[in-house]
């Protein structure tokens, strides 16, 4: 049996915020629970039946009282709502300079890909004090990425990307759980998040990535799938050039506009006919079944590396070589 504690460790910038909210909720809950329990005890004993013929006076409800005990709880709940919503809203929007990582969930493992090419299974190494943004995909059923010590959780739904971010504040080893039931070995879909001092992380990174950076893998895949036959860099191919595409607004054939984000690129690889760029024919075949979710992520990373903006802003001292946009 391990040691028992009543509060989980606080290891991310979110954790204190969530815990403060918890203290508030707890205080309200304890106050009302004690109030109701004590009232019942007191009233039940004070007014216990002493004779079988007893008949209490009829009391007519008090409008004022009803209003008081509707309005006060309502006010308190609105505080809860606002507080909870603001915590949530922060959790929803990763900062621009967050370090991107990719996660592919499948029955029953977490596959993590670093920009520099490192791959891990059921382990995630991240540097202390750096905001991390995970873009997650599932190959089969719904999973949920959950790190209790960070107080974050996000479902990973097949067919689309979901995002989670956090900024670790304490070095150590923390549980990673799958929180959405995903089949027989659901409880085996667990792992560890290692938060490392930046220099340790640097050392870990340089420990070797046999297959090159993520965007290099993407480039290899891009070539081997013959994407480059049509998507020519100078725009002379049958398909639009992908140079400088990522993050731009694309004009579609049906008149709509769409921002070229991860979801758009993923859709264009798997369902190319869904959104046709203005001025081009729907000639691209689908790559569904030909590329895995990992492969799609590598391709996206490659397309990102084609610019226009650097993949990671505010780079700092970390992982420079992987993040420098390729110039071709």
């Amino acid at each position, binding site marked *: 049996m391990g040691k*028992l504690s009543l*509060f989980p460790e606080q290891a991310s910038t979110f954790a204190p915020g969530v815990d403060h909210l918890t203290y508030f909720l707890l205080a309200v809950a304890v106050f009302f629970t004690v109030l109701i329990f004590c009232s019942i005890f007191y009233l039940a004993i004070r007014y216990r039946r002493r004779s079988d*013929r007893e008949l209490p006076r009829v009391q007519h409800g008090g409008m004022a009282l009803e209003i008081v005990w509707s309005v006060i*709880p309502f006010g308190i709940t609105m505080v809860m709502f606002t507080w909870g919503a603001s915590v949530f809203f922060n959790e929803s929007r990763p900062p621009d300079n967050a370090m991107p990582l990719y996660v592919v969930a499948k029955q029953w493992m977490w596959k993590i890909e670093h920009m520099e090419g490192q791959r891990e299974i059921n382990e995630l190494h991240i540097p202390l004090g750096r905001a991390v943004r995970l873009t997650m995909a599932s190959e089969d059923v719904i999973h949920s990425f959950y790190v209790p010590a960070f107080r974050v959780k996000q479902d990973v739904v097949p067919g689309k990307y979901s995002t989670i971010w956090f900024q670790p504040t304490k070095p150590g080893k923390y549980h990673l759980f799958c929180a*959405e*039931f995903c089949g027989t070995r659901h409880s085996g879909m667990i792992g560890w998040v290692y938060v490392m001092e930046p220099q340790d992380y640097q050392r870990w990174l340089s420990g070797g990535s046999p297959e090159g950076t993520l965007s290099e893998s993407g480039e290899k895949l891009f070539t081997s799938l013959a994407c480059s036959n049509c998507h020519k860099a100078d725009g002379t191919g049958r398909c639009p050039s992908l140079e400088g595409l990522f993050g731009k607004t694309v004009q579609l054939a049906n008149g709509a506009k769409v921002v070229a984000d991860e979801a758009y690129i993923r859709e264009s690889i798997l369902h190319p006919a869904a959104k046709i760029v203005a001025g081009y024919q729907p000639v691209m075949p689908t790559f569904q079944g030909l590329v895995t979710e990992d492969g799609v992520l590598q391709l996206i990373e490659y397309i990102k590396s084609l610019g226009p903006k650097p993949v990671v802003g505010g780079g700092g001292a970390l992982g420079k070589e992987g993040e420098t946009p390729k110039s071709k």
Partner: protein
Amino acid sequence: MITAAVPERENYLNNAYGIKSWLLTKDHKRIGLLYLFTVTLFFFLGGAFATLIRIELLTPQGNFVSSETYNKLFTMHGVAMIFFFLIPAIPATLGNFFLPMMIGARDLAFPRINLLSWYLLVVGGLFSLFAMLAGGVDTGWTFYTPYSTTYSNSWVIATALGIFISGFSSILTGLNFIVTVHRMRAPGMTWMRMPLFVWSHYATALIQVLGTPVIAVTIILLFCERVFHIGIFDPTLGGDPVLFQHMFWFYSHPAVYIMILPAMGIVSELVSVFSRKAIFGYQFVAYASMAIAVLGFLVWGHHLFVATESVYSALVFSFLSYFVAIPSAIKVFNWTATLYKGSISFATPMLYAFGFIGLFTIGGLTGLFVAALGFDVHVTDTYFVVAHFHYIMVGGTIMAYLGGLHYWWPKITGRMYPEGWAKLSALIIFLGFNLTFFPQFILGYLGMPRRYHVYPDEFQVLHVLSTAGASVLAVGYLMPMVYFIWSLRYGKVAGANPWGATGLEWQTASPPPVHNFDVTPIVTHEAYDYSTVIGQEVEVG
């Protein structure tokens, strides 16, 4: 020896004998008893699954049953308890039996449809039971796609069909109740004179009628997708698995109110009768039931906060969820205020009512926790949520159900239950319940995900406490089973109105005659006017 002398008056139990007189009965009271029998079976079946789950969780290694078995156990626990126990438990047994009597009707509006509802529950139950015996189902009671449609290798279809069929049972019961309340009230029984039990069942019936069809069509689509692979929710065909969750929770969140509203109705009756005092703020309590039924339909998306629901949608759902808290709080405060200057008896049903108010308060307040977005992200799909809904479902619904069963037992059977044993079991249940589920709040906050067969060592202490509590709880639940059966033969013969209650059901014999009343009652007073029963007024306090 107690029974002998007096020749028994004809009542609904002795007017006909034989299996056919039960299986073809159109008497709402007999149908209520058929339901009682059926849901009790499912309660103990679901309880058996729960026992196995708790035994497994004694150790973190998962060495009592395999993962497959464990997943099936918690799924079947959920299916049996939710669809075949909690949803029909109060409305179809006590509601069926007492709703017509309380409004002075001879029966429900559609007695044959009422019997059909019971058969549908039985057929649906048999389907699910077949699935459980044939190999079980392992999707969780929520049947999330694409696991349930594509990946699970268990008896999803049979179970889903069982739920589909039992859904019609629920719809027809609700439909019957609504029509009965509108059209069958005795002369003088105005809406504002109806007992709160009737009000809460009316609200419940609205949910059953408006919500259940959506789960029915969702199951049909699930069925089509699993059997014909046509890809309604299949992400590989461009379908949206989260759409399934929307449709599922459109019903399944209001379904929580199908379970708790009737329980609130029972508690309103109990608090009033055993304080011998009209419920404080009758109108507020009545309208609160309606408000819960309506608002309950606007909040389902709070189950999807981390399921890739849009941020804005999540904000709206969180906001709306807090509105449901207000009518619930109004009820708790009004019940408590009813005690003030009352004449409070500590009969067993009242102990259950106290238990309900306390546990429902905790369950409700922790509901405010999980409605707070930032908090929910951390605890959703953990034991915190498990603890929260067990406080509502077990601490709330089952406490009230048992309280109601004790309260009306003399009316149903004409016999009293043994008071001493009953008090003891109420106490055991209360203690066992808290020991079982309170540790789960802490487990959840520490990060223990639900539906885990194997778990990290540090959670073991709390799991052991929880399992210890569950064994106490099991003893508590078995006791009423034994003494209720015992009382059928040996219990003290009950009079027409042993509690000094005002409801019309107490103005007729125990057990009631076939058509409830020898003479159609004419109502001239508000509900809960105890001067009509007790006579003289004595100042209390």
